[in-house]
């Protein structure tokens, strides 16, 4: 498992208009090896082993409190496993440091946006923080989010769907290798859902590893290529998605 090829690159295109002043490295897979995460006496994750490969769209499914968000936090390097380890192409988060964070995009329950700032200010701040050329990237991201005409409006005046679209662009502005989405479809209408789904497919097709934690089985059914079912912190199943997700979920987890 530790021999997974790791390529240290400085020349790989990270994102259009980027200034790669962070030494970055690339990876084709992520392995969780016997990972547990406890909060005091509560076991949020228990001995989970899972390999995520480039091109996968992995649906992380399970009831509330199953450990999905904990797993996303661990993959995002924001939490440290109590035991076991997460390896990104053979390196741990501690070994890779900032160069790994350059390759991770996270959209969580909370949208990680400053409501007092405008859409443009938010995206510019995060693009600059990632060492990217905000002058080039931000207008394109605003266009994709359908917010070009509201670019200078403060985010606190946006609807949930508009915020979600903006947060999506914030999470993807640096063209991450590992894309972690926790309930990305919340507040989106049908057309926005299909745009986001298409975006995730494009990311996976370009070699990104996409992980989507969701309760929306109908959307997940047509989107994910692999399914990881979790309950009470344990990984119950890790298998290719082959339709009939709701019935598989019901038999593994319970009513859905």
């Amino acid at each position, binding site marked *: 498992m530790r021999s997974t090829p790791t390529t240290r690159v400085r020349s790989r295109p990270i994102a259009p208009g980027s200034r790669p*002043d*962070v030494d*970055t490295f690339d990876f084709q897979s992520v392995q969780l090896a016997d990972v547990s995460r406890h909060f005091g006496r509560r076991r949020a994750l228990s001995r989970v082993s899972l390999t995520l490969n480039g091109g996968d769209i992995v649906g992380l499914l399970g009831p509330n409190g199953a450990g999905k968000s904990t797993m996303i*936090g661990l993959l*995002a*390097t*924001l*939490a*440290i496993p109590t035991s076991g380890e997460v390896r990104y192409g053979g390196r741990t988060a501690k070994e890779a440091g*900032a*160069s*790994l*964070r*350059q390759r*991770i995009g*996270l959209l*969580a329950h*909370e*949208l*990680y*946006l*400053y*409501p*007092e*700032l405008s859409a443009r*200010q938010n995206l510019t*701040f*995060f693009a*600059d*923080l*990632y*060492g990217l050329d905000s002058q080039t990237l931000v207008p394109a991201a605003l266009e994709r989010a359908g917010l070009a005409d509201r670019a200078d409006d*403060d985010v606190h005046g946006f609807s949930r769907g508009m915020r979600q679209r903006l947060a999506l662009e*914030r999470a993807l502005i640096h063209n991450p290798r590992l894309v972690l989405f926790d309930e990305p479809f919340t507040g989106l209408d049908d057309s926005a859902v299909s745009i986001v789904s298409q975006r995730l497919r494009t990311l996976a097709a370009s070699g990104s590893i996409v992980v989507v934690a969701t309760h929306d089985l109908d959307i997940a059914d047509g989107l994910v290529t692999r399914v990881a079912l979790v309950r009470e912190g344990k990984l119950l199943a890790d298998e290719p998605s082959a339709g009939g997700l709701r019935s598989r979920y019901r038999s593994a987890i319970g009513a859905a």
Partner: protein
Amino acid sequence: MFVRTAILVLKKDLAIEVKTLEIVMTTLFFAVACVLVFSFAFVREGQAPPDAAPAILWIAVAFSGTLALGRTFERERYSETLRALLLAPAPRPALYVGKLLGMIVLLALDELVLVPLIAFLFGAPMFARPLFLLLFLAAGTLAFAAVGTLFAAMLIRSRTRDVLLPILLYPITVPVIICGVRGTAALLSSPVDEPTATMWLAILIAMDVVFVTLSLWTFEPLMSE
């Protein structure tokens, strides 16, 4: 990268503050009210008790600073933006320095109003040694904000953060406030007690070095969940 990140975080915090004026207005009103109440209590026939002015200056700075610390990190908690900052490929101590600089700017604005106000209400010769006073305020503010920024960031996920912040902050920063009070009192004495003021300033600068070094060292591990 380090400096650029710190400046980005500082600029972002200032951009939010310019739009909302929330922290500046809250802390200024609080600090001015504090000084006004003390002036009515202590000043009799234009005469304030000796050393009252420096004590009130530093108490106002400390209390309004605590208020500012709570609010500035509440903004990062509201949409969990601190997690987005921690996820960025920037050196994490640079995020700390950016937040610290933001706090220092906010407290400096407070002090810009407080110093002339105290000079006027208490008849204190605050501008007898302006450069010396500036050094005291800079060193004292840095020490207070360095510890406060670390603790406020550390407590961001705690439900009892509003209670815990002063409980953790004041025992550590009381020596800073005492140094500030004694040093400023030496500056305001007539004639100016320069050796004593220099001694207190040296202690404050030593505290700055210790607090900033420890904070930079511990910020990253303390921020890991």
